């Protein structure tokens, strides 16, 4: 079965469907999206589902604010039949040492200057919002009420439905086996379901972005690292905001369903695309989280899972157009926050591909920054 498309997007996670939707919204035609499994099979369906604007670089603040503003109206704009379950219950970032306090002061000042309504809270004020928080070893917290929680599966489906409504086509269980080029230009994609002629190919495979780029003959400075998440039994709502700490290495949120979802960065995790569970993880994360919220100590654990962070050298995304072969674009390296910035990814990649004026400063996110040294080092990641 051979096909022709103007633009072919590889990857049916949140980034791929967002790129597909924004391409059509901005006037592209005949867009085809390929996914090797089912939609949200990869990093999206395994993510922590948090949406935050509290970042330490101007660029990350700007793209996350753009994305959050989009999520606030996404239900209507995408005319989704279900509920994307966007709950703006806030993000609370714990401050446990002087250095972190200084960083948070800078971050909050930066965020406020960009129109993000974050603030520093005393331990007492933090306990008003999160009564179960143990503030004994904290100096305070940073808090933003507009941040929150969004259902990754519904959001992916909402983009995908809107993409199809605008005329886009999705092929699932389609494995990319090769990318063909002639005279320095992409000519098509070979897949397990046949050849697809396309002069523009977008690599939104994220966890597998370096593999897809490799097939096209590019060497991107990316690796995919396994990250783990654990979830507990559901109980009545008691925790509003996402609790996050960079120094204590944890994040934990009660989902709308009532379960607590928690994760951390573990040392020496495999970088070989494995998504199997790490047996040492439950004990480590339980200790970290119970120190911060002792009331969770008797909760029963339901299960754990793992997914891939596609990590770039400066923990910021890469939005890039290849010079050889021309017509090959990459959106990757999200370093654990690709879900929450997917609208910015979609809009930026659409503008780049269609030659439209930039809404966001995406030129700075080109892969060439690693040669020029103009890095986007983000201080605030777990």
């Amino acid at each position, binding site marked *: 079965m051979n096909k022709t498309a103007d633009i072919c997007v590889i990857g049916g996670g949140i980034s791929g469907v967002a790129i597909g939707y924004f391409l059509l919204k901005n006037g592209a035609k005949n867009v085809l999206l390929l996914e090797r499994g089912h939609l949200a099979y990869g990093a999206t369906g395994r993510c922590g589902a948090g949406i935050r604007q509290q970042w330490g670089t101007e660029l990350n603040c700007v793209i996350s604010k753009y994305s959050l503003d989009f999520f606030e109206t996404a239900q209507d704009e995408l005319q989704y039949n279900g509920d994307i379950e966007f709950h703006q219950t806030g993000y609370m970032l714990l401050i446990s040492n002087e250095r972190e306090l200084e960083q948070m002061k800078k971050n909050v000042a930066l965020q406020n200057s960009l129109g993000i309504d974050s603030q520093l809270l005393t331990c007492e004020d933090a306990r008003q919002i999160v009564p*179960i928080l143990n503030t004994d070893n904290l100096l305070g917290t940073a808090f933003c009420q507009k941040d929150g929680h969004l259902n990754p599966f519904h959001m992916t489906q909402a983009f995908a439905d809107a993409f199809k409504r605008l005329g886009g086509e999705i092929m699932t269980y389609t494995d990319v086996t090769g990318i063909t080029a002639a005279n320095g230009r992409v000519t098509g994609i070979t897949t397990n379901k046949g050849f697809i002629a396309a002069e523009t190919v977008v690599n939104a495979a994220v966890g597998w972005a370096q593999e897809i780029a490799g097939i096209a003959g590019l060497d991107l400075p990316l690796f995919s690292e396994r990250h783990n998440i654990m979830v507990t039994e559901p*109980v009545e709502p*008691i925790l509003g905001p996402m609790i996050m700490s960079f120094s204590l290495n944890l994040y934990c949120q009660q989902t709308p369903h009532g379960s607590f979802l928690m994760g951390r960065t573990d040392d020496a995790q495999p970088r070989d695309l494995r998504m199997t569970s790490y047996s040492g993880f439950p004990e480590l994360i339980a200790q970290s989280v119970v120190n911060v919220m002792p009331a969770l100590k008797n909760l*029963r654990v339901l299960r754990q899972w793992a997914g891939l962070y596609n990590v770039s050298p400066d923990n910021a995304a890469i939005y890039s157009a290849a010079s050889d072969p021309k017509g090959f674009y990459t959106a990757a390296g999200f370093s654990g926050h690709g879900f929450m910035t997917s609208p910015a990814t979609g809009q930026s990649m659409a503008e780049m591909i269609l030659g439209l004026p930039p809404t966001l400063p995406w030129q700075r996110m080109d892969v060439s920054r690693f040669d020029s040294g103009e890095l986007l080092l983000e201080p605030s990641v777990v």
Partner: protein
Amino acid sequence: MYTYYIIKNSERGINLRIEAHPILDFKRGNPVSFTFDGVRVEACDNMTIAVALHAAGFKGISESMLKKRPRGLFCAIGNCSSCMMVVDGVPNVRTCLELCKDGMVVETQRGKGALI
């Protein structure tokens, strides 16, 4: 609407307990009593709460999350969450694993249970 599924607790009366078994020897322990939603239930301290309630004819011991349909003893080995009840004020107790104690207060759980 769901009355078809309901086995009313008030329709108890049949003793389901096997008193003598040709092969097994039941070690039921010492007699105790506890309350289930205020009703006194006689049991033994080597029985689980769910078993004591089942034997006493209380089939509906919890309710489903969304539609509030009655739920009874199901897996009986601590896996399924069907028998979660409030025991002495603690919610989400798997009563199919928890042994009966004299004077304990067992209640039907409404909702997912509060953490504190």
